[in-house]
């Protein structure tokens, strides 16, 4: 069997006999197949997810038992201090936890892993529009892995000016121990991540606009694809600003420019070279990207959740068009609200008021989405599968994260809760309770397509239950800490009388956090066991409508063994036109097809 890929190169399926080292490398390592690249992203980001989680445990350890010896790993890491976390190491921990989770896990797992894997399959294309660019977008991540990872080992032990990297702390080398080589490596790694995202986003936009199967109009796209499409637009328009800002900070550090360094700075009792810059400029540039990035980290998850909810409620998605408009609305507003990270930064208070109104408006499309999800499960036939449980918990956790956002959007309240654990609670509810739960759901949902085998349901449900319980134990209590004014990023908050009595609650949270990370063992075991020994899945194990479920599991090179033609939207569950409770997009009207042998199948 041979097929023509998108870049016009004929490829041939090989039998195992003629499969040499060169073939192995071009098929599985430097592959231009979107599915292989998607899986490469998936495995890399899951590994970093684990590292990021362990960094979080380090943070939690210090907050629960400050300055006490860390059992087992403490002596290995900090033998000089007898197993204690030093304040320098603590600042590095939270800096790298956030950096890893944002830039190496959430953004690449959504766009890189699921975007790559699902976009061509769900729109009925044989590959991405630019397969070589796609391959590069993965391999450019490796310098980022290297530089972020390497910054752990250079003098000063990792970048330690926060993932927001505010100057002058980040741009004046004398200001912090990790502000030397580690910070420079951090900036280079950030640039690499940016290049990778940019290559991906150009590719996704082109693919979604140009390569849809016949009949696949924009308004028949699954919400996952809409999420990916809007995300790609956000990346393309916002990223150049961050990249420019990164270069400016790099220039400040290495070539003595003064974009972000003000005049008359005295650090460590020595006067710095005259700058004449403005620290707030960095914050504006950084958040001009990083606020849209917040939506880059949630919109694809919203899309995937919409698909999963509709599939397991066996009912059409409620309000498809309003959902599309809401995603676009969130993205549009996302460009004019970056200032809400800066209400107490010293920005003009009048400007703060403008940003406040725009920020409040984001609650509107978010509410529309939530109510439509509830409308989707109303009156359905809900199947409580593992992906469905994760998708449902996404909705509930997103409600919490969304509502707590209103507190900090209110400028006067933000004066009090800014930089406290209220904020930490808010974004963990959106990013862990929201996105990470959606990612787990998506893995359980699309795993049969990726590996051709099913994951174990009982293990998946145990994984869900434990993660859900311990996540809420860890993050819900943070709201209460925030109400006391408990600040972020303090190595020893109990130094202050105001916060001394909060130690027991922090210990409770730490125990929950450790158990939450430990619960992931169920996922890891399930994942690897199922890859090799799970029951065979077949093309469409969930009886879903999307195009990807009409392709073989796993799809071969070129994806489809027939030319998919699309007749309807992806959410026709429970349609009165057919006897089954689903109606695949490729099934011609009023003509029944066997899903394992699609009616439209054309043999090559």
């Amino acid at each position, binding site marked *: 069997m041979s097929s023509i890929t998108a870049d016009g190169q004929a490829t041939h399926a090989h039998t195992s006999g003629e499969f040499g080292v060169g073939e192995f490398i071009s098929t599985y390592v430097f592959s231009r197949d979107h599915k292989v690249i998607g899986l490469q992203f998936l495995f890399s980001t899951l590994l970093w997810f684990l590292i990021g989680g362990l960094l979080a445990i380090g943070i939690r350890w210090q907050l629960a038992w400050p300055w006490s010896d860390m059992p087992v790993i403490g002596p290995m890491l900090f033998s000089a201090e007898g197993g204690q976390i030093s304040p320098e190491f603590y600042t590095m921990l939270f800096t790298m936890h956030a950096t890893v989770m944002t830039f190496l896990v959430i953004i690449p797992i959504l766009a890189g892993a699921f975007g790559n894997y699902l976009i061509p399959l769900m729109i009925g294309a044989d590959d991405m529009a630019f397969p070589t660019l796609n391959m590069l977008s993965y391999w450019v991540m490796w310098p980022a892995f290297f530089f972020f990872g390497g910054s752990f080992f250079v003098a000063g032990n990792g970048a330690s000016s926060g993932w927001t990297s505010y100057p002058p702390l980040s741009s004046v080398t004398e200001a912090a121990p990790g502000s030397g080589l580690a910070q420079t490596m951090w900036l280079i790694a950030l640039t690499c991540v940016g290049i990778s995202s940019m290559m991906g986003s150009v590719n996704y936009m082109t693919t979604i606009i140009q390569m849809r199967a016949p009949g696949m109009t924009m308004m028949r796209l699954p919400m996952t694809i809409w999420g990916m499409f809007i995300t790609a637009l956000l990346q393309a328009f916002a990223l150049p600003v961050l990249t420019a800002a990164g270069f400016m900070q790099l220039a400040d550090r290495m070539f003595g420019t003064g974009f972000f360094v003000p005049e008359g700075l005295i650090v460590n009792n020595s006067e710095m070279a005259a700058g004449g810059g403005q620290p707030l400029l960095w914050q504006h540039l950084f958040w001009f990207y990083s606020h849209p990035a917040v939506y880059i980290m949630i919109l694809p998850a919203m899309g995937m959740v919409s698909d999963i909810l509709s599939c397991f409620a066996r009912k059409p998605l409620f309000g498809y068009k309003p959902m599309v408009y809401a995603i676009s609305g969130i993205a549009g507003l996302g460009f004019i609200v970056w200032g809400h990270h800066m209400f107490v930064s010293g920005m003009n208070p009048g400007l703060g008021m403008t940003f406040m109104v725009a920020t409040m408006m984001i609650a509107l499309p978010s509410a529309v989405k939530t109510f439509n999800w509830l409308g989707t499960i109303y009156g359905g036939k809900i199947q409580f599968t593992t992906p469905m449980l994760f998708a449902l918990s996404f909705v509930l956790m997103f409600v919490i994260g969304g509502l707590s956002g209103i507190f900090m959007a209110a400028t006067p309240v933000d004066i009090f809760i800014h930089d406290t654990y209220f904020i930490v609670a808010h974004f963990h509810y959106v990013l862990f309770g929201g996105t990470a739960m959606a990612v787990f759901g998506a893995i359980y949902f699309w795993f049969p397509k990726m590996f051709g085998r099913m994951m174990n349901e009982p293990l998946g449900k145990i994984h869900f239950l434990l993660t859900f319980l311990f996540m809420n134990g860890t993050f819900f209590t943070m709201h209460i800490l925030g109400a006391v004014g408990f600040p972020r990023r303090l190595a*020893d908050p109990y130094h202050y009388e105001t916060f001394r009595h909060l130690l027991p609650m922090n210990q409770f949270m730490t125990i929950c956090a450790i158990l939450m990370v430990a619960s992931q063992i169920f996922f890891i075991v399930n994942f690897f066991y199922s890859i090799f020994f799970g029951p065979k899945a077949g093309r469409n194990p969930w009886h879903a409508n999307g195009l990807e479920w009409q392709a073989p599991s796993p799809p071969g090179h070129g994806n489809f063994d027939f030319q998919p033609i699309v007749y309807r939207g992806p959410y026709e569950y429970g349609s009165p036109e057919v006897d089954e409770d689903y109606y695949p997009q490729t099934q011609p009207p009023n003509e029944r097809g066997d899903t394992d042998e699609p009616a439209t199948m054309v043999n090559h």
Partner: protein
Amino acid sequence: MGRFWSLLFLSVPILGVAIFVWSALGLYPLQGHWFPELVVADDSIDHLFYVILWMTGFVFIGTGLAMFWFLWKYDDKKYTGPVWYSHGSHLLEIIWSVIPAVVILFLAIYQMDAWAGARMRRPMLENGQPKPPIARVTGRQFEWKIQYPGEDKQFDTPDDLYTTNELHVPRDEEVVLEITSEDVLHSFFLPNFREKQDVVPGMKQFVWFKPVKDGKYDIVCAELCGWGHYKMKGQITVESPSDYRAWLKKAYDEQELSEYSLAEAE
């Protein structure tokens, strides 16, 4: 299992509300797990927090209960009725767009006055001039340098009083402070005063409040400023105007004495 999962999701709004109520009432073992004692005259921030808490709490409970009910009722294993084959409802979309829009708009306008009071309406003197700061607070790694202008009310003159991490303010007066930084970003955070402002090198900013209760309270640094960020702790003392003036005089005399002895030693 559908019943079990529905109840699990129901537990989120129930436990969530319970934890908030429990801490707000300060019941065992969560005493003190709510706002620190308010010691300024202006309670608009706390008030606004409660307004938003009631509104969001209502939505949270509502969506949580709705979700529970749908999961309970439409469980595939229990529910035998037909699927509601619907692609949405125009009317519902309008209802749940317009109502949140009105509420949000109300909230946006409602809070503007509190923000203006905290950040735009600086206290005035009787002659219409902005009230001068009673002290200048400068953040540096890792301490708060505090400078009082002295008798002549001018900063950087010989009669200035300098302290470190120790700020005294008079009770029942509008206090204005000038805050800045000499090295990196810090944030001047007074939890009991509901006041927080990042200090930026090269920028002079003002904060104001009217303390109404005597006592010693924490000054917290709330913006990452380096490895010693956690120990950048100051103390603000609220006392009667007469005690305040007595402290100023005593501290100034001590400073003179130490400068005198320093000069003598040289």
